């Protein structure tokens, strides 16, 4: 974002060796592990599976299969709907928290920010596992409901449903959403809000017309960082989702595991990346359209 354009000081001693040494580790990791590895996925997606590592012969059959088999449409659509619901839930619930942090927290702000980000650094697997024990047939929620007399016998309705996936993912990715929104809200000049109320805007009007539009870039960034990891998730569907909530990540994982059709798995991955690219472009467009920040 804030790339340093040019320092006024000339740097005659800028040694070539220093530059090479400093650029090398990053260049190796980014070009080999990220770009080249992603290139391999793209390459493999256009090969036929003959059991060898890189397949044989060029073909578009993998993509034809992805597009023509209704199974993949169903699963992709389900992944998109689940990820969209999770994104909506996390962003909507996180917004008031970010708002409080930016405008009302006062001296407690540091502590609250820490409390909100702490779960971010704990094991994702354990957070999902926690929901499994909450939602299980003889689990925490069922037993608590029976114990308190609200229900007379345990229900199977919690675990192994798409709803369980949505709740679990929304909980797991909640900390991701707060920070970008908070940053956007915190950087709104306080004078803007004061000007609005000086000019007679009621609190709600100034929120709707001033604060909300100015925080849209943060909201879109938050939506993106929640949407991307959830749309490709395979751990949560496996642990709490059951067969009715297979997601696209589950299928990719299976192609590289049990099903052992790497080229087809690669084609699925490329399709997912294209879908994500579309979403990113839409978000970019929305950002330019609604992000009133200059």
């Amino acid at each position, binding site marked *: *974002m804030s*790339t*340093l354009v040019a*320092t006024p000081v000339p*740097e005659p*001693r800028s040694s070539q060796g220093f530059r090479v040494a*400093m*650029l090398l*580790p990053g260049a190796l990791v*980014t*070009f*080999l*592990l*990220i770009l080249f*590895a992603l290139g*391999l*996925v793209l390459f493999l997606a256009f090969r036929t599976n003959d059991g060898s*590592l890189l397949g044989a012969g060029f073909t578009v059959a993998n993509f034809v299969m992805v597009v023509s088999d209704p199974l993949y449409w169903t699963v992709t659509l389900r992944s998109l709907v689940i990820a969209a619901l999770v994104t909506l839930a996390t962003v909507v619930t996180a917004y*008031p*928290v970010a708002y409080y942090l930016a*405008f*009302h927290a006062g001296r407690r702000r540091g502590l*609250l920010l*820490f*409390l909100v980000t*702490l779960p971010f*650094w704990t*094991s*994702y697997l*354990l957070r999902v*596992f*926690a*929901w499994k*024990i*909450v939602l299980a047939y003889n689990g*925490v929620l069922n037993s608590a409901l029976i114990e308190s007399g609200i229900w007379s016998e345990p229900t199977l309705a919690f675990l192994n449903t798409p709803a369980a996936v949505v709740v679990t993912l929304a*909980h797991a990715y*909640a900390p991701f959403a707060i920070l*970008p929104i*908070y*940053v956007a809200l*915190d950087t709104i000049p306080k004078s803007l*809000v004061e000007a*609005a*109320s000086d000019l007679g805007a009621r609190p*709600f009007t100034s929120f709707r017309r001033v*604060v909300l539009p100015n925080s849209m*870039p943060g909201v879109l*960034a938050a939506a*993106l960082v929640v949407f991307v990891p959830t*749309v490709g*998730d*395979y*751990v949560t569907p496996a*642990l709490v989702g059951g067969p009715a909530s297979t997601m696209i990540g589950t299928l990719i994982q299976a192609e*590289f595991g049990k099903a052992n059709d*790497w080229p087809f798995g*690669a084609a699925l991955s490329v399709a997912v990346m294209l879908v*994500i690219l579309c979403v*990113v472009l839409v978000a970019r467009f929305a950002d330019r359209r609604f992000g009133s920040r200059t």
Partner: protein
Amino acid sequence: MSEGRHTQRGGGWLGVYVIAYLVFLYLPVLLIPLFSFNNSIQAAFPLQGFTLHWYATLFGNSALTSALLNSLVIGVIAATGATLCGITVSYMDLYGRSPLAATISAIARLPILIPGVIVGISLLILINLIGLGPSRIAIVLGHILVALPTTVVIMRSRFAAIPKTIREAALDLGASDWTTFRRVMLPLSLPAIVSAFMLAFLISFDEFIVVFFLAGTEPTLPLYIWSQLRFPRSLPTVMALGTSILAVSFIIAALAEILRHRGLSAPAPADPSQRKQTKRGELQWHST
């Protein structure tokens, strides 16, 4: 939702909401420690009484011990690699004045926009192609990649917060690039380096989605937990193990946080506006 300090009521209701939100955030996770002390194989109410039995089962479990050692070794090596890359990438991005350095820095933050499963399979193809195969080295490479956005963002905001004049003064006084980097910029950013290392270690230590594809015969701790989840009998042991991991994660994350904030006031008694800017810079990473 109302604006400003003078509307106490709006703030009050929001405060209640924030507390409820925090409860939602922490309650499910805190059930793991709760039931790890429960004297029953079932994670259900009513609680059956206090026991340390499940913690006792953790000791003398050789599969668990080797998974733990594996995770520790991989975590330290991967965190070292990710921190090193984070330092060099962000330093060159800010001071290298080359499009290549800026490109590298942008790509280094790209993994945020790629689902973990795709990072996993792309590395799986790569390590098989270069003949490495699923192994500990493969896991280290994967975890360097997963932790890289975090280390780059932390180091970049740290370097950006150091007043430009300090580096310029060093160069003016005849220090070479290398000396300026090693004797001026690195010491000034030391708290952030330690913080980046600790968080990268945590990321590696807890990581599951990518490691699933890269592990050979020696599992890491999260993979060990995953393998145990199939057996209802071993759930209490998993909860005891999970509690220990959560405790360690909380402590390391808290220390890293403290260090990061200490870092903000490290380079001289910086003026408040400077400090504010740093804080924002640090949090900026999601919105880039």
